[in-house]
């Protein structure tokens, strides 16, 4: 979001009060909900639902320590969060590579798209979790199983978006490139890829959310380590605070990844924001 509001002297004078009010206006509902949870679920009220303060306390204590030698994370983090994060990173990278690569080819080469279209539709519509029984037979209970499921499930949105991005290229751009006698590779790198990139990023963002879901599902289904494994283990041993702490961990992870992605996207697509604002240079 680019606001670009000029800061006049009056705005600066009001500024010190305006900011806290704006922040308050944005967070009040979240605060109300957290407090309501805390008040509703006092200790002993429900075994399944510990008070929010206990959950957040356990969350911080279980996953983080104040020790630079440990990189500020606990052993619990090392043994359970790191494998999950690695699976997520591998699966999503594979999905992004295949999705963008194949999407570019299919977007440019129409007959190939027509050839593969029904298969893509089928793959896209098949709920990826249905593949769990297969990947587990193929890979066994290994990290490759989780990675394979994540990759298979999150490729589609990248693929579809890349194809759409390439195909929605403005014909004027093609004509302009032709009249400039732009070579094939220059056309690809300087016209096609940039014009498709906003939609590719939209696809990548959706696939990141899907990848996170699939990471958890595949670990709940079968894994010997990972955040999903922690959840199942905590639940079966009736340690519900630990289970909630793992849930909060995944939620925070989701927020962080989304935020990071937004930053990268804003950086890579900076030229687009600038050109739509009509301001050249940086």
């Amino acid at each position, binding site marked *: 979001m680019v606001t670009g509001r000029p800061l006049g002297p009056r705005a600066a004078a009001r500024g010190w009060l305006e900011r806290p009010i704006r922040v308050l206006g944005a967070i009040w509902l979240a605060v109300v909900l957290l407090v309501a949870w805390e008040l509703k679920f006092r200790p002993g009220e429900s075994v399944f639902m510990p008070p929010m303060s206990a959950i957040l306390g356990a969350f911080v204590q279980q996953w983080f320590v104040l020790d630079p030698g440990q990189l500020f994370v606990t052993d619990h983090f090392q043994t359970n969060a790191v494998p999950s994060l690695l699976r997520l990173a591998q699966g999503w990278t594979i999905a992004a590579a295949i999705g963008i690569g194949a999407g570019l080819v299919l977007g440019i080469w129409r007959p190939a798209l027509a050839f593969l279209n029904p298969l893509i539709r089928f793959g896209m519509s*098949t709920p990826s979790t249905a593949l769990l029984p297969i990947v587990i037979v193929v890979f066994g209970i290994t990290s490759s199983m989780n990675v394979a499921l994540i990759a298979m499930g999150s490729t589609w949105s990248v693929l579809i978006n890349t194809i759409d991005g390439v195909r929605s290229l403005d014909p004027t751009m093609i004509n302009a490139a032709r009249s400039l006698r732009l070579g094939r590779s220059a056309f690809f790198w300087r016209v096609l890829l940039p014009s498709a990139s906003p939609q590719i990023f939209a696809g990548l963002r959706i696939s990141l959310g899907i990848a996170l*879901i699939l990471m958890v599902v595949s670990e709940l289904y079968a894994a010997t380590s990972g955040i999903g494994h922690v959840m199942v283990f905590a639940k079966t041993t009736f340690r519900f605070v630990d289970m909630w702490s793992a849930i909060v961990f995944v939620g925070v992870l989701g927020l962080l990844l989304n935020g990071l992605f937004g930053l990268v996207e804003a950086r890579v697509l900076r030229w687009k924001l600038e050109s739509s604002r009509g301001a050249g240079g940086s």
Partner: protein
Amino acid sequence: MTPLLSAAGVTAAILVWAAVTVAGVVPAQTLPGPAPVAARILTLLTDREFYEQFLDTLTTWVLALGITGVVAVPVGLLIGYFAFLRRPTELVIHGLRSVPSTALLPVAILFFGLGLQMKFAMVAYAIIWPLLLNTAYGVRSVDPTAMYVARSLRWSTPRSLVGVVLPSAAPGIASGFRIAGGIGLVVVLSAELLGASRGIGTVLVRYQQSDQPDFVYAGIVLVGALGILLQYTLGQLELRLIPWSPAAR
């Protein structure tokens, strides 16, 4: 030309599949050939028990999409309409949305057991966020002129919400439903694979555990067909119900 190529693509895929299994590149236990899978598809389609499980999955999906939609659309309209609600609700929605629904599966099982209620709760949690967000974004696409007209006609807030805001937001709501439909199917299946007592997912797990991969593949093909069918139905509904949507043009 295009349909011909598409048919050729499907045929080629099946031929490659057959060639791979006949050549024995992968063991039949991992990937059975197309012929046995096709035979199993027929077996499943005529199997009464499979039909009931199939219906259970479909019922959960329809109920969840319908009931969540009835709740989410009005709330989304209000969130989008009243500016002071937008930022606080968006913060909460983005926070809750980033907890993958599947992470709450253990909690859902504790609360609702293994039946339809649990699956319903899982799907509702997963799809309410895209429905709310898409409705609220849809509200923003309301033409300001239309709002001025409503105001100058002295329409009350509820009346302009139903008469002006809802129709303008409808295409956004429809795309929310399309996204929710896809996610919903994934989540129903997850819940069924991970513990629910009924549904297609439970059938898949049973066949996997009894080492009958041909049935597993047949089931997956049918689930994929269901997915295509449901997306097609949602698309058709959109065309019928909101002919002014860009998708209808």
